Structure formats: C-alpha cells, structure tokens
C-alpha cells in the first residue's frame, strides 16, 4: 500500500437503466487532502460520492480505502462518514443526541460520550445549543450540527454532499473558510461534492471536474482556472470568451479579426481548428482607437460593486465579448450603452482549446 494514497478508485462504472452515471473513473486521493468533485448536475459526482460511502454498488471497478477493498462492505462498517446535502438531522433528538449518535453506535456511553460530544460542539462553536431540537435551529446551525455529527467518529474520510448549498451567500463564504479551518485542525481527508465552482476554487487543494461520468480535468484550482483543457472546462469554471479560429505559421487567425498570439500556440500543429479562450478580466478596454485594438459597441453593463461587466459587440464580426473591469478602472464611471470602445488582450493571456 502506498502511504500517499488514502482512497483509490479503480475504473468504477455505474449505470441506472440506460443512463451511465459514472463511466470507468479512476482517481487517487492523498491523506489529509481537501478534495472537490465539481461538475454540473447529472455529471455523476453524487453517484460517485454515494459509491464511496457504500450506498451504491459500482457495476464495475473497485474502491480501496487505506489499502483495503471496500467491495461488499456495508456503509455502517466503513470508516467513512457522509454529511448529507439535506443534513438529515434526526428531528426527534437534540443537537447533542444527534452528534453523539455515531459514538453511541460504537458503544461509547456515559462521561466518555459526553466529553466527546462536548468537544465536537466546541469544534463547530455550538456549545450553547446542545439541548435544542433541530427544528429550532437556523440553517447555518443545522449545517454545523450535521458537520459535527459526521466528524465525531473521526472517520478516515469525510464526504460532504453540497455542504453549503442551502446557505445564503454571506454565510456560505464564512463557512468556506470555517470548513477549511476544521479540515486543517482535524487532519481528516475531505471530499466535497459541489456544483459551485467558486466553492471548489476557494476550499479545495485539488479539484476533479466531472462531466458525463468522467473526469474532464484534475488539478489544483489555479490550473483549472488558468489552463482549462477544453471548452467544457473553460466554460464551467469562471466566465470565458470564446473566439473560433485556425492555427497558422505566425499565430492564430481569427476570421474577420486578424492574427493573434496565444500562450500555448506552439503545442498545436498548424492548420488545426481551435477556439481561443480569454477570461473577461484579461480583456482591456480603451475609450479611443489604438493600434491592433478591436472596435465595438457597448451593448450593456452590469454593476457588481467591486467589478463592472461590459458586453461589447465587435464591429467586424458581430461577436460578443464580455469584459470585467475592476472598480478602479478609469472607464467604469462613464460607460454607457451604445458607446464605442476598443479592446485588446495580451497574447500570453489567451489560451487555445482544441475542442
């Protein structure tokens, strides 16, 4: 057994009728990692999570945890705990009763149980609410109870299914940091399932982007954001402008716009059809014409407080580009719909995608 691998997923597949949820997927997760399974709904991420927890049986392939095969091991016998998307708190038990349930099942009783429930309450900062019933808690408090309940048995692996999905935005951002802290403090390996790319980018050490039951891209948050492997990955994580073109000897020819440079042009053979991908925050806008900048008309703006989103329709081709200006930008004060602007981007910030 490799000490650097906690969870080993070897070629697992799972179908429901005609629908293939997980398709020959292989993945290794290191101990202590904060890992995110990211993807749109129906990409198979929840099925994968449920197979790791033991609630679904793979049609093919194998899951190994800390070197031992999990095939045929019931969920209640796996050193894995799951935090449910619905939290699934037991409504007839108090907060302390919910949190202590897992230990009770192990036969822990009396002062030992009380002490460890107290510690778990401390960890999620809920000490004062031990005797409350779940229906008298706020959404954020319920989430913490669910987390404490899943953590108290000190599992080798904690699975979190859309842990922040039910919280409002402010609380979600706070809990992202909180989850990260708890994961660091406990040293438990976390696998989070989420459809929210921001959540994955903020919290995870590594992300597996899933699409149609397969891993589309696996890497650190920065790699996924800055070097997406294909159009799906580029589109799913963050906003992205796409301009179709063709690789030539001296750059990338974008029909109607000219020839441009890109960071990874040398990786691709000449003549190949590509899509040039540029992040909105990499686009530069100018109020006056300048060499090699493309003219366009402002079609609309969206004010986000710290940022301003500008939709610019290019004169030459009618293609729409989205630019994101930070609040400090000279132009943000006086951009109006219909106004003429010029845009360009540094070649190093444009990336070519083959599909």
């Amino acid at each position, binding site marked *: 057994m490799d000490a650097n691998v906690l969870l080993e997923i070897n070629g697992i597949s799972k179908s429901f009728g005609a629908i293939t949820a997980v398709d020959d997927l292989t993945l290794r997760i290191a101990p202590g990692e904060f890992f995110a399974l990211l993807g749109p709904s129906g990409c198979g991420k929840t099925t994968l999570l449920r197979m790791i*927890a033991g*609630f679904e049986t793979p049609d093919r392939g194998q899951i190994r945890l800390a070197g031992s095969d999990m095939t045929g091991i*019931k*969920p*209640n*016998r796996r050193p*894995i*705990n*799951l935090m*449910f998307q*619905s939290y*699934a*708190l*037991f*409504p*007839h038990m108090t907060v302390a009763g919910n949190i202590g*349930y*897992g230990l009770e*099942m*192990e036969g822990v009783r009396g002062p030992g149980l009380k002490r460890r429930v107290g510690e778990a309450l401390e960890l999620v900062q809920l000490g004062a609410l031990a005797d409350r*019933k*779940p*229906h008298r808690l706020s959404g954020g408090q319920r989430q913490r109870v669910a987390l404490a*309940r*899943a953590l108290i*048995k000190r599992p080798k692996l904690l699975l979190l299914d859309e842990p922040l999905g039910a919280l409002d935005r402010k609380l979600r951002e706070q809990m992202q940091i909180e989850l990260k802290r708890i994961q660091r403090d406990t040293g438990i390996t976390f696998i989070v399932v989420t459809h929210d790319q921001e959540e994955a980018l903020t919290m995870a050490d590594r992300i597996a982007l899933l699409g149609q039951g397969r891993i589309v891209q696996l890497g650190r948050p920065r790699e996924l954001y800055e070097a997406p492997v294909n159009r799906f990955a580029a589109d799913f994580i963050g906003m992205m402008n796409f301009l179709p073109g063709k690789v030539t000897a001296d750059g990338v020819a974008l029909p109607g716009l000219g020839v441009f440079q890109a960071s990874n042009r040398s990786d691709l053979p000449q003549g190949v059809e590509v899509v040039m991908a540029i992040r909105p925050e990499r686009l530069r806008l100018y109020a006056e014409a300048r060499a090699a900048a493309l003219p366009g008309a402002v079609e609309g703006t969206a004010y986000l407080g710290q940022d301003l989103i500008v939709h610019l329709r290019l004169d030459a081709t009618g293609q729409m580009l989205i630019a994101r200006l930070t609040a400090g930008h000279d132009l943000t004060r006086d951009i109006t719909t219909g106004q003429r602007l010029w845009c360009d981007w540094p070649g190093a910030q444009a990336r070519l995608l083959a599909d």
Partner: protein
Amino acid sequence: MVLSRRAVMLAPGLGWLALLLVIPCGIIFVHSFFERGIYGGIDYVFTLENYRRAIDPLYLRIFLASVRIALTATAIALLLGYPAAYFIALQAKRRQMPLLILIMLPFWSNYLIRTYAWIVLLNREGLINRGLIDLGVIDTPLSLLYNDFAVITGLVYGYVPFMILALYSSISKLGPDLREASTDLGAGAWRTFLRITLPLTLPGIAAGCIFVFVLSIGNFVTPDLLGGKQRAMLGNLIYGQFLTARDWPFGAALAFILIAIMMLLLSAQAWLVNREREIAP
C-alpha cells in the same frame, strides 16, 4: 372581506355537518337524560338513571369485552400493517400508487358482503376447514366461526387498510436520508429501525391505531354476523337497545358514552398530527 369569503366557502360543509351530525348527536345526548316510556317511547322526565345503569357490571363486562376485542384487532392490524406500509413507502414513487389502490380495492365492495364472505371461509364446511382436512392437517373441523377469533379476524380484515394508509403517510414522509444517515453513523438495519424509523413514525402508528380502535369498538355488523349473539359488543348492545329492547334513552346514554370515547381518541389523534407537523422541518 377575506373572512367573509372564507365563511361563504365553509358554510355548506359546516351546515351539512351541523344538520346531519351535530344536531342528531345533540338529540341523542338530550334523550339520554330522559326516562323510557312504558311502551318504548320517551317520557320527558329528567334522570341520570341511564348513565348509572351503563356502569352496571352486566354492561361493564360487555364494554370491557369490546375494548379487549378492539385492542386485539388494533394490535394485529398494526403488526400486519406496518411491514406492508413500510414496503410500499420504500418502492419507487410510480409503483406506490398502484399498491395503495390495491390496498383500498376491498372498499369497492360492500362491507356487509365482505363480512358474509368470511362466514363462507370460516364455517365448519368452509374453505379453510375443507382445505386443512384435505391436506390431512386436521381430522375434525376447527371452530373458527361464532367466536372472538372470527370477530377479530373480521375486524382486522376490514380495517387493516386504514392502518396501512395512516402508516404509509407517516413512513413515506420520512424519506431515505434519515435512514441512510443512521446507517452511515454505524447503525445496522434493526437499530436504525428502533432508533430512527419507529420513533419518527409514532404519530402514524397512533393515528392508525386510533382509526382501527374507534372503528372496531363501534362496529356491530361483524360481531353480529361472525360472533354470534352471545358475543355482543358495545355496538350490538346499543343496536339492541334501540331496535329490540326499545329503550331509547338507555341506548342513547350508551351511544353517547361511545361517542365521547371516540371524540377523546380522535382529538388525541388530531393533536398528535398537529404536533408532528410542527416538528417536521
């Protein structure tokens, strides 16, 4: 404006109930305090004699026997109904409705006819005795009819669908998440049932039991047909006071006691259902 519209919407239903339920119950209540006329009518003289008579050991014994039979029927209906309701609630959503319709299918035929069918099944020459004799299990026919066994069988048969429906609504509300959470935290199937499913479906159990008990204790058709005359239950006693003994005031007093018990139990049930609704997120 809103209030008056609500009043208009409620008026027909409430009027119907007042006319056909509340007023007749009121009449029974009033009659229970009068004396019986010499020729079976009512002498409008106030008395508490009817209620005193109701706790006479003779009638108390019938009352207790009725409670015992109704409780037994309720317990058996619960034991039969819970696994059935649990099974249905665990099926895929689209398969649940056909199963529930099958459960309710007996209601499409008359209760009386269905009770007669039990006579055909249970009598000395009936299907069950014949079958057992032909299979060589027994030599002489068993006395399956005209006893408590037959009454309880008939009551359980008649009312188990109510039990299943009450339990189903409670169990299906639970969803798989809580069971899975319990399993995930290390509980086996049995402990998950005892610690999670059973306590959380107690309101459904109470609702179903109250339904079956209330329907059983007031029933007079089943004891009349399957129990024979000497096995009278409270319903038969009341029936007899009105139609055979022609002692309407006493029948009214017995009926009112029965109504009071049912009201108490049904209020308890309503309270339980409300409480469950408050707790459920």
